[in-house]
């Protein structure tokens, strides 16, 4: 009995701690990216530092002309920032998509990105369903 207890008590503690970690949430363990708002808060300390920022692409802001780099505005709540990017553009990159950019902000408040990632949607729907929803 005593031997069993010696086994069970630690197991219960381990189980409790793991579930605490799961449910209390690993809140700040690793920030994969910051938001536009957080980025602008850190100005001017953040000039020249390499950061990863996420935001929504503002409708109609994408300028993608030949021989020039891609330019668009990324927003997040109230804050906005202009982004410049030269490289491969993800297929789903378009107006209203959530994007993640890696790079640094220059002193004239333009974000120069080395890498542009698009987040895939968390809601999967078919063409038809969206058409129906828009109609209704």
């Amino acid at each position, binding site marked *: 009995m005593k031997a069993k207890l010696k*086994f069970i008590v*630690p*197991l219960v503690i381990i189980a409790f*701690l*793991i579930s605490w*970690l799961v449910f209390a949430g690993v809140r*700040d*363990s690793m920030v994969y990216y910051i938001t536009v708002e957080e980025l602008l808060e850190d100005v001017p300390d953040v000039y020249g530092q390499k950061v990863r920022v996420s935001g929504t692409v503002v409708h109609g802001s994408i300028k993608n002309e030949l021989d020039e780099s891609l330019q668009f505005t990324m927003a997040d709540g109230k804050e906005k920032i202009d982004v410049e990017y030269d490289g491969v553009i993800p297929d789903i990159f378009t107006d209203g998509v959530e994007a993640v950019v890696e790079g640094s902000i220059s002193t004239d408040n333009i974000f120069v990105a080395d890498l542009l990632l698009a987040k895939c949607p968390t809601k999967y729907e078919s063409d038809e369903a969206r058409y129906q929803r828009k109609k209704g």
Partner: protein
Amino acid sequence: MKEILLIFRKDLLVEWRSKQIFPTMLIFSLLLLLIFNVAFEFRSDIDFHTISAVVWITFIFSGLLALGRSFSLEKENNAFSFLLLIPVSRSYIYLGKLLSNLVMVIVSEIFILPLFLLFFLFDAKGLSLMDTILPFLGVTVLGTIGFVSLGTFFSSMAVNTKLRDMMLPLLVFPLIIPVIITSVGVCSSILEGRPLGYYAFSLQILVCFDIIFVLLCSLLFEYLIEDSGD
């Protein structure tokens, strides 16, 4: 409880007599320090996060060196077998070895840490004892408990495998990643001069990891050291 202290005392006595592990760890750390500085081309603009990462890489590499050695010493003349004959719960044996390894690793870290901060931060401006050094040491102790608990556990496994000490980093590194992530994060926050509230949650997580690992390892130790004879 008496048994844990007996094993702890014996281990420190063995190390005191042989003076093998401790100097090796120190010199190894200094060499790593040199290599990092050379690799960074003696730059002075290295950010706090990189410094914390470098410090932790050094702690873990030199720490694992000591852990591997501590069980090889037990295997000489099969001395460990005799320890297993003693009427003591096997988790006490584990806790005794854990305690002695902890003391050795932490003491060496206390020696290394000021050197690192000095070599990387040069002027050490803005480093106050209360706000930086002591919290840094506290986190170091917490992180070290996490990786030494797993390290002690798996080094007793590694010495019995064909690959011996080569196996130890393979077993330990992937498992201690949570500890590394958290410790490095907290250390860089401390260097940046953030208040305690900023990283308090990470500290809680770190304490959680420590408790989970120590409990799990002392539970499983009995199964680990059973002599399979082949």
